[in-house]
């Protein structure tokens, strides 16, 4: 009786730990697959990155998926399979830059605000909370509409949304870590404030930062696609980008050209799923209690 009571939670814990690890692993495999497609694209298709023929000629437009064009062709006669292969470059670049910007701004601010406390902390927190409460996509739309879309501009607009997310997570972790004994012990051996923040606090916030980082990637891809959809596309046709291609396909929906939107959309979902699986899995591994 006693043994059975003790065994069940242990097995469950093992299972759950396993699920979390599997989630991270699946996410990594998906991402590796997508990045692999991008890198190997020249070997996977004879066409130009835009989806035109190698000699620059266009194909017949609106072709349904067939042996020649396994994902069909679009409105101006570009091969969708080729565009799907190359179309991840822009969203992934935008996502990388935006999370990087947000990380570089949000993490130091969170460290500073959380560690120093006081009036500065209250002020920064108020600003960050206000930004956080605002619908991210709408903010990104406003900024992008004003400064004009481009890889860096769009990335900056998305970064504005994610700065408060990094800030909040790092700050709340700092608030709990700075009360821990090892921080006091560090003070007792004479560590400077800077050293305490970077040697003792920052390393312990990294797991939390990683969770937000991969979530930020997922959101950035979605927002970049959303911006493309409403006409604030990072690139212009004939350059390929999944979000842009879905937006283009919308015009031909009524004629039933399902393939134009379907394949780039699936790639968007795939890429986002990869990042969010990593984020979820990491989160579970960090807080085994909540995920059990």
């Amino acid at each position, binding site marked *: 009786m006693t043994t059975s009571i003790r065994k069940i939670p242990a097995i469950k814990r093992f299972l759950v730990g396993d699920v979390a690890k599997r989630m991270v692993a699946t996410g990594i495999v998906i991402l590796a697959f997508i990045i692999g497609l991008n890198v190997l694209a020249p070997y996977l298709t004879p066409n130009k990155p835009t989806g035109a023929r190698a000699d620059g000629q266009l194909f017949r437009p609106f072709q349904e998926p067939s042996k020649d064009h396994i994902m069909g062709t679009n409105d101006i006669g570009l091969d969708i399979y080729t565009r799907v292969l190359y179309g991840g470059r822009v969203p992934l670049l935008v996502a990388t830059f935006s999370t990087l910007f947000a990380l570089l701004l949000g993490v130091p601010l969170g460290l500073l605000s959380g560690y120093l406390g006081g009036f500065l902390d209250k002020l920064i927190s108020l600003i960050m909370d206000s930004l956080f409460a605002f619908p991210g996509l709408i903010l990104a739309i406003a900024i992008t509409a004003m400064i004009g879309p481009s890889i860096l501009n769009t990335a900056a607009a998305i970064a504005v949304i994610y700065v408060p997310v990094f800030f909040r997570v790092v700050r709340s972790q700092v608030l709990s870590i700075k009360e821990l004994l090892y921080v006091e*012990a*560090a003070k*007792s*051996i004479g*560590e400077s404030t800077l050293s305490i923040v970077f*040697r003792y606090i920052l390393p312990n916030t990294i797991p939390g930062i990683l969770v937000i980082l991969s979530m930020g990637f997922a959101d950035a891809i979605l927002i970049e696609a959303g911006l493309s959809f409403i006409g604030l596309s990072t690139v212009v046709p004939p350059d390929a980008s999944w979000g842009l291609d879905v937006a283009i396909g919308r015009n031909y929906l009524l004629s039933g050209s399902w393939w134009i939107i379907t394949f780039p959309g699936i790639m968007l979902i795939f890429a986002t799923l990869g990042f969010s699986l990593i984020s979820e899995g990491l989160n579970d591994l960090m807080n085994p209690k909540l995920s059990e």
Partner: protein
Amino acid sequence: MLLNVINLKKYFPVEKSFIEKLITKTKSFVHAVDDISFSIRKKEIFGLVGESGCGKSTTGRLCIGLIEPTDGKIFFDGCEISSLAKRELKKLRKKIQMIFQDPTASLNPKMRIGEAISRPLKIQGNYSKQEIKVEVLQALDTVALTPPENFYHRYPYELSGGQRQRAVIARSLVLKPEFVVADEPIAMIDVSVRAQIMDLIENLRKGRQMTFLLITHDLASARYLCDRIAIMYAGKIVEIGFKNELFTNPQHPYTKALLSAVPVPDPKHKIDRIIIGGEVPSLINPPKGCRFNPRCPYAETVCQTVEPILDKVGDEHYVACIPKPFYKK
């Protein structure tokens, strides 16, 4: 005297919400340490004993300059700690170190043991990489984490509780300090390894001529290690004396009560137990007069109004009690 504590006070302000600040103007304070004085000799192990929340840990933190006193002075080897500038305080850290209660919590989980122990040396500067490594390995060896090379690259989670506490001690020894404040060094570790840590402290005192302020709630370990003991209650020292004197001839009712709670491994031993009722008083509004008076079975009316001061009752034996019910003339 190596350490002189004179009329030391530490009041912590009570945090209030924004609205409360608007409504009330009065500030309230936690009187964590309220006017205590004592001194510690070179090579002495001085015990500070009391229940949790009596201010003994705060006293320890004050003694190493980790927090600033509200009032009063602390002299270490003749220089006043609270008046020191940052740079001088850093120099002082070479001589004064602290060991904390929870070895697991007092090590950064993301820092290897070797790195953690080398930090005090790096902060002080003036050491080459080679010297640092040698010193760290030597410190590991002193605390019997052997072979030291094996422990150098490990993370705290790879060590047992007792090993961690020894690593913490090694960190406090690496600068070869003269004085160490040990805050409940054995409270959080397994009973089986407590004796080793206590022996380690005893050996350091003998071998390295070190001085210790041992903060503990455990009278038994204080009796084992200390030369002199001060008993703290609600931010005040109620009794100070040599270990044997204090254990055989306690004068304060609180000391008596604490002692009678210590189990004696002798079934024939009979003691007149003093069992005190009530609870530790609020340190925000401590009782008037003697802080112990609401719980004291010997309290007289005078105890409710007059605050007792430490009176000499024997050879270096002081007690802060007006009626002194156990005093034999």
